């Protein structure tokens, strides 16, 4: 994986650890650290079956002890109430969530309509439509924005989309390793920019897509794409165009509310193109993927394990 280095002391952020020494002592201790790796005693093998078995045991214990936090919930409710009184209702954000396995549609106070893909979350403040039209998104959503007095601004993973009246799709998953945000426009045009450098915006026209990766400075130049494919999720379609297995499995996890464990991590970046109209279950999709990639899959308590 990306951040892995062979030296644990570096990976763990104690890269400064040996910085507290100098000269021969530094070299000696560094060498000792390397040498000591041979003393590692990882003798207990835990098989996949055992993991599943013990996970099932935990599931049972958890269903027995449901609703554990009543006291805490009351406390939280009281705290929220105090906050509401103190802030005069203004600063408590409204949250709309689409649970995994569901698509949710919501109408905002200004009449704009947002469709949220499974596992996504949209937040906006109480001043929405009065003082601003700012929302934040984690996940994927299709926006049909009404024109209004204030620009409609969506913040996602450090990027922003600014519009007046138009239709477009924003895809920005926290769990994406690149923290990529993609914007595809189906009607009108939008401005897209990193939150910290609003001046470096690009204008995305109807039928175009631009993306931004948090670690890079530049947004991609908007280019024409088949935008209909980008919003197929609204009709429960699954469309993967040269997507990595990592991304595809994350999508299936959210769509079907399951977990998929990829035991062959070295294949996570392999890409695949596939299209499904309205798949009813993950197994049929997994079956195809596994056949193409020479993988196998097995049922687990809450989903599937994919292995070589």
């Amino acid at each position: 994986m990306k951040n892995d280095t062979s030296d644990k002391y570096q990976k763990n952020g104690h890269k400064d650890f040996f910085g507290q020494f100098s000269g021969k002592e530094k070299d000696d201790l560094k060498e000792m650290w390397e040498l000591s790796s041979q003393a590692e005693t990882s003798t207990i093998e835990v098989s996949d079956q055992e993991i599943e078995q013990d996970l099932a045991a935990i599931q049972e214990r958890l269903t027995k002890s449901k609703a554990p936090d009543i006291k805490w919930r009351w406390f939280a409710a009281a705290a929220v109430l105090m906050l509401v009184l103190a802030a005069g209702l203004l600063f408590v954000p409204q949250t709309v969530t689409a649970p995994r396995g569901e698509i949710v549609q919501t109408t905002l106070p200004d009449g704009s309509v947002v469709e949220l893909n499974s596992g996504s979350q949209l937040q906006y403040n109480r001043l929405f439509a009065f003082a601003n039209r700012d929302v934040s998104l984690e996940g994927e959503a299709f926006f049909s924005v009404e024109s209004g007095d204030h620009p409609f601004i969506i913040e996602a993973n450090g990027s922003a989309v600014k519009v007046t009246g138009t239709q477009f799709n924003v895809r920005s998953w926290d769990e994406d390793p690149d923290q990529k945000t993609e914007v595809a426009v189906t009607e009108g045009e939008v401005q897209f920019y990193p939150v910290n450098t609003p001046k470096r915006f690009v204008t995305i026209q109807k039928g175009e897509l631009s993306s931004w990766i948090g670690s890079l400075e530049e947004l991609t130049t908007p280019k024409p794409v088949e935008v209909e494919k980008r919003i197929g999720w609204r009709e429960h379609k699954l469309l993967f165009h040269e997507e990595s297995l990592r991304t595809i499995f994350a999508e299936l996890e959210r769509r079907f509310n399951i977990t998929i464990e990829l035991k062959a991590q070295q294949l996570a970046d392999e890409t695949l193109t596939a299209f499904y109209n309205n798949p009813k279950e993950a197994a049929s999709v997994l079956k195809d993927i596994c056949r193409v990639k020479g993988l196998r899959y097995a049922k687990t308590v809450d989903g599937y394990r994919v292995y070589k």
Partner: protein
Amino acid sequence: MAKLSDKQIRIWGKRISNSDRKALNSLFRSLYPGLINFAAKYNSNRAIIRDIVQESFVALWENRSRIDPNGSVKAYLYKTVRNKSLNYIRDHSKETVGLEDYEPLVTDSSFNIGSSDKKEQKLSDLMRKWIEELPGRQREAFRLSRFEGLDHDEIAGVMEVSPNTVNNHIVAALKFLRERYDIYKKQETKDRTL
């Protein structure tokens, strides 16, 4: 299996604090084997080890609303496993055993008979022996850092001391090991010249 990035674990932690059971399952699958091996340093009974680790995941779930979503769920789990293991030792030994006194079990004793690399073999065994000779807290901090892949802040959380103390423990452990190693090297050279 590839090592999971800290970022992935953070995302699962966040989802767990939002009551996402699937995230708990993913976390379980990736950390369970490591925690079993960690718990084995305190106990030799496989059934008890499994129970302690499972209980720790249950505790994580039940306390999910009190957990700092930006904090380390990994450190939380190691800390819980450690506390439960030490409690078990305390409750099941005749006299009270302080942490400083308890002797962890040496779980590794597999000798590769007929190995051509005798010197390497010998050094790794010695290394294990030296680590066992470390004072309890030093040994714990060193192991968590070297073998469990926790950073200083996480170890501080697990052992309930300051990161500075963790650093001191690890420095002292490394220096001790170095001393032993130097003596060993001197002996080796002497043996060869004889």
